[in-house]
């Protein structure tokens, strides 16, 4: 409990909280990394997942790529890119996007691919074009699953961003590793607690959005789960 108190005191000290390397600025930086990487992963993953899901093809490729991504150690991806691209933001960013992509892709794909055939056939019979079917029928039905994919991608990036300080990136991991190096347990615990709080806050925010989406798309694929 002493450490918890020490961590609290560390966080409350304005010297540690403010300034460009205070935990306030590091939190913003951490969220910024997470947002940028997730958005890039969405820009690549959603069109690709929609295309593949609409065409009902390459199922094995999607399933095996998400499976393989799960076996990949995140620290390995971060250190490998760190070595290949050197210190800086490019290496960790690339690692984040690579690790976020499978979840987004799988979510976009599964939602569209799982849209009830009856609904799609009905839309086609009504004379909708393929684009209209995709955006007016399949995409809304797949919204809950897509959101689930984006949710796990975001949490994955948030966690990996903590490790990225090891290869020279900023974010809250910076404070954590400084604490590790200097054997400052209060600092380590304090920054860890901020990351934990951030992850839980982001997850709860997604939970709320998820409820809203399921209310707007009550017949969405996987909505009953």
């Amino acid at each position, binding site marked *: *409990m002493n*450490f*918890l108190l020490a961590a609290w005191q560390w966080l409350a000290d304005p010297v540690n909280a403010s300034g460009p390397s205070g935990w306030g600025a590091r939190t913003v930086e951490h969220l910024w990394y997470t947002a940028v990487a997730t958005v890039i992963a969405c820009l690549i993953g959603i069109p690709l997942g929609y295309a593949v899901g609409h065409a009902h093809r390459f199922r094995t490729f999607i399933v095996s790529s998400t*499976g*393989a991504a*799960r*076996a*990949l*150690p*995140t*620290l*390995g*991806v971060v*250190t*490998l890119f*760190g*070595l*290949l691209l050197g210190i800086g933001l490019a290496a960790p960013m690339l690692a984040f996007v690579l690790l976020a992509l499978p979840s987004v892709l799988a979510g976009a794909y599964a939602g569209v691919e799982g849209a009830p055939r009856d609904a799609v056939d009905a839309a086609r019979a009504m004379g909708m074009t393929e684009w209209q079917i995709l955006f007016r029928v399949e995409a809304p039905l797949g919204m809950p699953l897509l959101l689930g994919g984006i949710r796990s991608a975001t*949490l994955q990036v*948030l*966690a990996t961003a*903590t*490790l990225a300080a*090891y*290869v020279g990136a900023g974010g809250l*991991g910076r404070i*954590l*590793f400084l604490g*590790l190096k200097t054997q400052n347990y209060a600092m*380590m*615990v304090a*920054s*860890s*607690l901020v*990351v*934990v709080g951030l*992850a*839980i806050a*982001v*997850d*709860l925010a997604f*939970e709320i959005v998820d409820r809203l989406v399921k209310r707007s798309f009550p017949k969405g694929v996987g909505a009953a789960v």
Partner: protein
Amino acid sequence: MKWILNNVSTITDATWAHLWLALPAIVLSFVVAIPVAWFASRFRRSRFTLLLVAGLIYAIPSLPLFIVLPLILGTSVRSLINVVAALGLYGVALMVRYAADALDAVSTDALLAATAMGYGPLRRFVGVQLPLAGPALLAGLRVVAVSTVSLVPVSALLGVNSLGMLLTDGFQRGILAEVASGIGATVVVAVAVDLGLVGLGRLLMPWERAAARRDARRTTVEDKQVVAA
């Protein structure tokens, strides 16, 4: 390639250390998740809360958890108990959802029949519900196993030995082959553990293979009928 040949013993040692962290955590996940899932599936109202908590635990990034958990456990950050407990916590959080779904999916008729035959609650759970949920439980445990194995390397940042040491050491010394072999070996261990679980499943649930074979035969017969028609 040369680095790998010169350091075979380092890689083997790290692989064993890796397994010594991952395997107890996987077993722990399964053993703890089953009663929790039973509770969630038996008392419907607790299900939502339990799954929400499990989801939140799973959302916690691993490195901070490795650092905060000793505050609760009273161990040191580098202790193996701490690492196994943290990995196990993730495993439980992931497994509870799969296990609750697996137990729910068992047909009510089978459970009612068992009760009618005079099975008590415990005997019914162990003798009927658990074996029938077996294949779905195995599918969940395979996901848990693979993600546990790939999570272990993070503990190397605290100085705990595993294949993750090849990643940190390789990065610090700028040896690309070491980092690459660390990633490769972790994936190989994950695949090996996964295959081991599949084998274990076949051993413990021989009826599944018989059923699969029967189904396959039936489909081919049906296919022939369709073709003939």
